[in-house]
Every structure is written in structure tokens, then in C-alpha cells.
């Protein structure tokens, strides 16, 4: 994509300006995951694997339908299962597709030290550029959703690309296309938000889920993957979806005040030493004086 570099609105570890900063596109893309119509079929998992060219990895049965405990560097999309018993004793099988949330304010990108290893396109997609990735793993610390995963073989970090190879030519992501029940939907952020809200209202008014709602966490300025939950007050039930995700405070401290304090200290130190040299000059050795007995100089 020739225009891709101009459409970058954020670049990790980048000194100076960003070519697309301030660029206003007509719309940003968004993936809507309606967990209330998810049937946990894992079509999205397979479609993701197939499209992205990853294949078999060893798994073991773990008293669950869940394929593996967490997403992996070569498994970007995982449905998390939770058998949940409601207060009235009725069962719920909560299923949530876990993948990169494509945060508006991405913690991975904030933490990344490598120039352009993580970029954010104007359409909202946060993309890892493995060619620039140095494999430091800071993105894994910066992400509040436990998404970026390190490949020991490639020594790079990988995650969902929101199929930007498909999106850039006008197709929908592979998982979206596959989803049999339409629990996954793709469109503009504005429309997905409206659609999610309509569904949440329906769940509240028709299906009796008083706490139904939309998950679009403000802590990361919203995400480009949003959820409809039966119980938006307890997102943790859905395979540990954080209640109030945000870039970790330590990452903010590290990339913010600490960095400026450190820079100041280092530059200040250098200047101070230079000043000292100019003010006091070098220490020179002196000829040995006879001992006057008190151990001090005469």
C-alpha cells in the first residue's frame, strides 16, 4: 500500500513527527463482538489461522472447550469459555472471543522502544511491523489485555492485525467473515457502537439482562473491538476481561515523568561535570612530603 505511510497516525519509538498525525479519515473501522450471540464454535479461530498461514500447535484437553489457556504468538484469536451459574441457579456458558482490542490509545505502542515496530493507521488498526520489532517484549507489559505474544523462534512479537491486508483492499477481516451467527460484525466505529447499543437495549428490555451493556473501555480511549455483554458490570466473568483497562501506571510513569527526569538528570550530570572541570580543573599528584607525624599534610 503506497499510501500506508501517510496514513499512520501513531508510530512507536519514533523521533520527530508522524506523517499522518492529525489526519482525519471519514471513518474508523471497528469489530463488534456480541458475546450474547456467540456460540463458541471457534470458526473465527480457524479462519484466523487459515488466513494468516499458521497451522497446528499442540494442545491438551483442559476440562473446557477452550482451545488453549491464552492466545499465542501464532494463535491470535481465542474464545474464552466460562461456565457461569446465575443467582437463580440457571446456567450460562459465557463465551468471548479474545483478540487484540486495537485500542485508540494503545499501551503496546506507548511502551514500544523500536522505531515503527508498532503503528496505528488512520482507520484505527494497531499493527505490529515485525520487520522493525526488536523483540524486547515491552509491548507485552504495555498491553492491558495480555495480547502481544513473543515467538521464541522468530524473536518477535505477534498479534492480531485486524487482517489489514484484507481491510486495506476493502475486505472484512477473516474472523468477521467466518462468524456463523453474526456475533461478529464489522463496520465503522460509529455504526458498530450504535448497533451494539441497540443490541444491549434489546437484551435489557426483552431478554431480561438488566446489566447488559457495551464494552468500549474509556481507559484506553475506546477500542476498535467492542463487546456486547449480558453483564457489563462484571466483564471479568468473560474470561478475565478487565473491568477498567488502561495503560499500566508504571508504563505511563516510565514513559512520562521518569523519562524526563532521567533525561534531565543525565544531561544535567554531564553539564555539571563539565562545569566542575572548568571550575576546579584536574587533580594532580603532588611530590611526596616527609611525614610530619600527624598523618596530615604540613
Amino acid at each position, binding site marked *: *500500500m503506497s499510501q*500506508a*505511510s501517510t496514513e*499512520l497516525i501513531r*508510530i512507536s519509538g519514533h523521533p520527530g513527527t508522524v*506523517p499522518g498525525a492529525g489526519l482525519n479519515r471519514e471513518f474508523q473501522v471497528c469489530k463488534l463482538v456480541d458475546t450474547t450471540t456467540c456460540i463458541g*464454535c*471457534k*470458526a473465527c*479461530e*480457524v*479462519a484466523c489461522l*487459515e*488466513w494468516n*498461514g499458521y*497451522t497446528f500447535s499442540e494442545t491438551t484437553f483442559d476440562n473446557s472447550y477452550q482451545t488453549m489457556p491464552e492466545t499465542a504468538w501464532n494463535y491470535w484469536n481465542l474464545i474464552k469459555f466460562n461456565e457461569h451459574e446465575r443467582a437463580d441457579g440457571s446456567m450460562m456458558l459465557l463465551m468471548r472471543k479474545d483478540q487484540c482490542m486495537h485500542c485508540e490509545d494503545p499501551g503496546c505502542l506507548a511502551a514500544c522502544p523500536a*522505531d*515503527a*515496530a508498532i*503503528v496505528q*493507521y488512520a482507520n484505527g488498526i494497531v*499493527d505490529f*511491523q*515485525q*520487520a*522493525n520489532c526488536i523483540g524486547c517484549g515491552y509491548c507485552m507489559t504495555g498491553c492491558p489485555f495480555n495480547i502481544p505474544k513473543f*515467538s521464541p*523462534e*522468530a*524473536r*518477535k512479537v505477534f498479534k492480531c*492485525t485486524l487482517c*489489514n*491486508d*484484507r481491510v*486495506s*483492499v476493502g*475486505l472484512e477481516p*477473516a474472523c468477521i*467473515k*467466518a*462468524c*456463523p451467527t*453474526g456475533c461478529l460484525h464489522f463496520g465503522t466505529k460509529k455504526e458498530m457502537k450504535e448497533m451494539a447499543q441497540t443490541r444491549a437495549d434489546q437484551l435489557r428490555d426483552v431478554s431480561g439482562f438488566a446489566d447488559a451493556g457495551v464494552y468500549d473501555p474509556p481507559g484506553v480511549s475506546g477500542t476498535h473491538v467492542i463487546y456486547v455483554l449480558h453483564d457489563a458490570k462484571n466483564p471479568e466473568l468473560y474470561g478475565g476481561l478487565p473491568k477498567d483497562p488502561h495503560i499500566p501506571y508504571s508504563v505511563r510513569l516510565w514513559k512520562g515523568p521518569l523519562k524526563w527526569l532521567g533525561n534531565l538528570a543525565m544531561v544535567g550530570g554531564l553539564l555539571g561535570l563539565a562545569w566542575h572541570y572548568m571550575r576546579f580543573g584536574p587533580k594532580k599528584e603532588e611530590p611526596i612530603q616527609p611525614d610530619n607525624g600527624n598523618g596530615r599534610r604540613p
Partner: protein
Amino acid sequence: MQTSRRDFFKVAAVGGVAATIFGFDLKPAYAQLKELKIARAAETRSTCPYCAVGCGVLIYTIGDKAKNVTPQVIHVEGDPDHPTNRGTLCPKGSSLEQDMLNPRRLTKPQVRRPGATDWQDISWDQALDEIARWTKKTRDATFVEKDAKGLPANRCEGISFIGGCTDTNEFNYLVVKAMRSLGLVYLENQARV
């Protein structure tokens, strides 16, 4: 195909590390988008072989169906035009690529002889000749023209044919035609169980 692609990925990944170890990357290309892997691939319309929803699938193959290309599958996804599935596929349908590109596929006729503990290869010609011979021998030995009450039977009671779930209508019809002509009554199908 599938193995080589995986290997290719490994090589690419290792090569990438090597390139960055030995090279300099002062000027990163800001963002390199992956090319769409099916951009100009040939597209064939088919039907998923699994359940009876009958989802339309698009099979993408190498080349553009030109004469000098032997097509091989590179990707399968749902047919967005199909009114039932509208492009969607379940986890089985989504993995159809690996159903075709599967190293476990049978690729040659084999025979297991009486008392043998393993398979041996056999030519198609010989296999078909032997099967035809068995069929005739068993039919002639077990054919019932009239039953105990003297009523017409015309049954071959020594051979059964069981048909599978993915056989096409036309194949099923040919089976009925051939097998009923041989007098088979033990004619059953996945449709029963």
C-alpha cells in the same frame, strides 16, 4: 504444500532475524502491509462437504486457470452470495483448505491380503479386476431368483454397499442403478445412521 509453507515461514522468520543482526536498519519502512494472498488467484464455487446447511464455499487455487497451471488450493472461504451462509463458515468449513492439502490423504490403491499384517500396493487395473471378480463370484454364489415360497426375489444376498454422506446426488443415483441391477438389497447409506 502445507509443510513447505510452514517451512517457508520459519525460513523467512529466521532470515529476518539474520538480516537484522548483520544489517543496519536505520531507516525502517514505516509500515509494510501484507499483500492480499488471493489477489489474483482462481476462484471456484463449491459446496462444503460437512453438514446439511450446504454452505457455499469459494476455493482459491494457484494460477488463473490457464492451461499451463496445475491448480493447488491456497485458501478457502465462504461464498458471500450464498443465501444460507452469506460467506460465513463454521470451524470445520474454515479448515477445508487442510482437508484438501493433507499429507494423510490416500493417494494409491492398496490391498490387504488374507492373513496379512500390512498393506501392499496394487495397480488400479488389478484392483478393479479383482473386485469385479469377487463381485461376480459372490453374486453368483448368493443370488436368490425365487424365494422359499416360490415368489420372485432376484436378490443378491451376499453383497452389501454402504454409501457415504458426501456422495453427490449423481453418484448416489449411479450407485442405485448399478447396485440394484446387481440385485443388491443390502444397500444402505449414512442417511440411515
